[in-house]
């Protein structure tokens, strides 16, 4: 077969950054033919980003350069279709707690009280908090490293997270693992993440499968980044959920950076929500700095999950406003990008929306709420700092679930087994793959 030069213009590919240039047109003629199928991606955003990031050589160094319009006005908050006034305020409080807790962690780190690093969700608080807020008690969550806000919404306290970072005996993992690496299968329905990316996706799909076998359709939510979505297990897990119609809500947090690698070196699609088309599931784009958009998309995806209609992929666009972890000053990020996203800060804009636009909340009430969050954090920080380190011997044991350790029982009720038939198991003499 002859190569179609028009559909894959190598010269154009070479022209831009990273040896790649403009995206190849969707069809040779560049427009839809009657035989061509079209797909829709729901887009809640009030602002479409119009800048590009490229790797450029400048003299003796190679760096990232941002081009495009960074002067666009800051978009307003999009009014939620579902949230009540009270719920707006609750989400605002979770976001504040999320951010202020991370500031406290940064200070604890500087005081040498944290073991290892600190991972921040700065700039992503709306995405963590408003998404988890859409879950019900019986639903499940699998957080990633930056979704500490989601853990708070799910019912863990700031002291739990602080003790994780300080490796304290009283941390949820009793010192055995760090950061957001903890869970709870009894009350809060949270799966502990592991450090490798995408592995929670099939696990959460399996949680939904287990619940369905017990007669319940629940929503299960997890996250993946623009970097993490490159992994094979991301595809395996989401495809499995799609094929089985499992109620997975996958937030793809496109925060533009996978450690130091920009999103456009991770994938070629314009929007990661386009991936949904290939799985045969709905795809949605939201502004990850707008808690209302995040909540509405999460709410609709959770409702779809509970109806047993299968998974949804939601891409949330925002920027990671710190380095990968506390050691990383993120000097590879072009400064103008920080300025652009700082103006779109999810908390400042939400606060302004509540206090000045909606006027649901007086400046005085806001001040009281902030003080209340500060007090809570101070108490949690003091408790966490004062709590003891584990004794060395507590490293032993617990590798296996021994007798009397856990009772295994179905969480949503005993599955209804199909009534028995008179015919039992018949022996098989069918041909096998290898004799």
């Amino acid at each position: 077969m002859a190569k179609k030069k028009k559909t894959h213009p190598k010269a154009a590919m070479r022209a831009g950054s990273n040896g790649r240039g403009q995206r190849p047109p969707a069809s040779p003629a560049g427009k839809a033919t009657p035989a061509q199928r079209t797909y829709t991606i729901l887009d809640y955003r009030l602002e479409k980003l119009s800048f590009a990031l490229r790797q450029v050589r400048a003299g003796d160094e190679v760096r990232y350069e941002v081009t495009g319009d960074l002067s666009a006005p800051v978009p307003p908050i999009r009014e939620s279709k579902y949230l009540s006034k009270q719920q707006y305020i609750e989400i605002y409080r979770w976001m504040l707690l999320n951010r202020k807790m991370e500031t406290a962690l940064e200070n604890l780190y500087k005081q040498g009280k944290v073991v290892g690093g600190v991972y921040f969700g700065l700039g992503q608080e709306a995405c963590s908090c408003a998404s988890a807020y859409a879950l019900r008690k019986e639903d499940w969550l699998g957080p990633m490293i930056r979704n500490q806000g989601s853990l708070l919404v799910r019912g863990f306290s700031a002291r739990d997270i602080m003790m994780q970072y300080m490796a304290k005996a009283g941390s949820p993992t009793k010192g055995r693992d760090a950061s957001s690496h903890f869970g709870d299968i009894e009350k809060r329905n949270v799966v502990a993440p592991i450090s490798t990316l995408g592995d929670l996706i099939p696990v959460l799909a399996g949680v939904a499968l287990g619940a369905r076998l017990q007669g319940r359709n629940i929503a299960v939510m997890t996250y993946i980044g623009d970097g993490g979505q490159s992994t094979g297990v991301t595809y395996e897990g989401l495809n499995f959920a799609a094929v089985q119609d499992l109620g997975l809500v996958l937030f793809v947090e496109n925060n533009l950076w996978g450690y130091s690698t920009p999103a456009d070196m991770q994938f070629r699609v314009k929007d990661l929500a386009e991936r949904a088309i290939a799985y045969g599931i709905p795809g949605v784009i939201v502004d990850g700095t707008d808690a209302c958009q995040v909540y509405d998309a999460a709410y609709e995806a959770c409702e779809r999950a509970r109806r047993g209609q299968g998974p949804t992929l939601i891409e949330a666009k925002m920027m990671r406003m710190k380095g990968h972890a506390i050691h990383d000053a993120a000097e590879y990020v072009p400064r103008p990008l920080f300025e652009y996203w700082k103006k779109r800060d999810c908390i400042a804009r939400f606060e302004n929306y509540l206090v000045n636009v909606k006027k649901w909340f007086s400046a005085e009430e806001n001040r009281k709420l902030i003080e209340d969050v500060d007090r809570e954090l101070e108490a949690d920080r003091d408790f966490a700092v004062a709590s003891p380190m584990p004794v060395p011997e507590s490293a032993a044991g617990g590798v296996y679930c021994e007798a009397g350790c856990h009772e295994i029982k179905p969480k949503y009720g005993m599955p209804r087994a199909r009534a028995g038939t008179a015919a039992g198991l018949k022996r098989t003499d069918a041909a096998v793959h290898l004799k």
Partner: protein
Amino acid sequence: MPPLTYLEAIRQGIWEEMERDPTVFCLGEDIGIYGGAFKVTDGFIDRFGPERVIDTPIAESAIVGAAFGASLTGMRPVAEFQFMDFIGCAFNQIVNMVAKAHYRWGAPAPLVIRGPSGGNVHGGPFHSQNPEMWFVHAPGLKVVCPASAYDAKGLIKAAIRDNNPVIFFEHKYLYRRIKEEVPAEDYIVPLGKARIAREGRDLSIITYAAMVHVALEAAEILAKEGIDLEIVDLRTVSPLDREAIAQTVRKTNKVILLHEDVRTGGLAGEIAAIINEEAFDDLDGPIVRITAQDSPVPFSPPQEEYFLPKVSDVVREAHKLKAY
């Protein structure tokens, strides 16, 4: 009841557990209407329905991940791998997600990952391996390698009832070659306990899976020469039955470690270390290893025969060790 094959014993074991406990379900590739590449779940979908006998995409990480997720809700999934060689595709899920769950965050993972392993069926490098050691080295997992039909049934039932993740290696060479009487009533074979496959005085062979039968055949030949072998079938390779290992060494004072897996990093090295720790003073000769060579499993029958440990290897090494 007429004698059961190793394959039928496993089928019965899973079937009975599914009858007994509605939280047990199966998932894997081609296990439904087709009944699995080796027919272990043949007929299961008609009895238990597609809800409990789930054909999955060809996605091993998703199979293990989904099994783990379901286990968190109190289910007892039995995940089939079409060939255990493909378990490498799900390695991260198994060793990082599943194996560490209880230690890290107190989440039990009562799931079974099972499938055919082992050579001597001319399956080539990707349908013949014995990858048990990848998992023996991962704390948090239990690893089972049955050699007999009776044990295969009792061990699969114990594995399904266990509250920990169990990797269950079925030996495909044994599937339809081994036949024995198996009791009709419910029984389990406890995990972590070895058995004496043959009592003997002169020297011990510690082995598992298909090599138990190689050892038994060698024992018949050696018996005619007046050499009396004791054969220990480990049955579970993690956790190891340290006491059974030490006991047989204390009894015969000479030991051959035999496995079908490759040599370097194979279980024989670990057992040798246990013998050093538990029964060094009881040894009257060197600890001998008989294993596959350190190479992939070759495809062509003459090459595969060269690769695998044979009865003649056991006879030869037994003669040498007896001389000490």
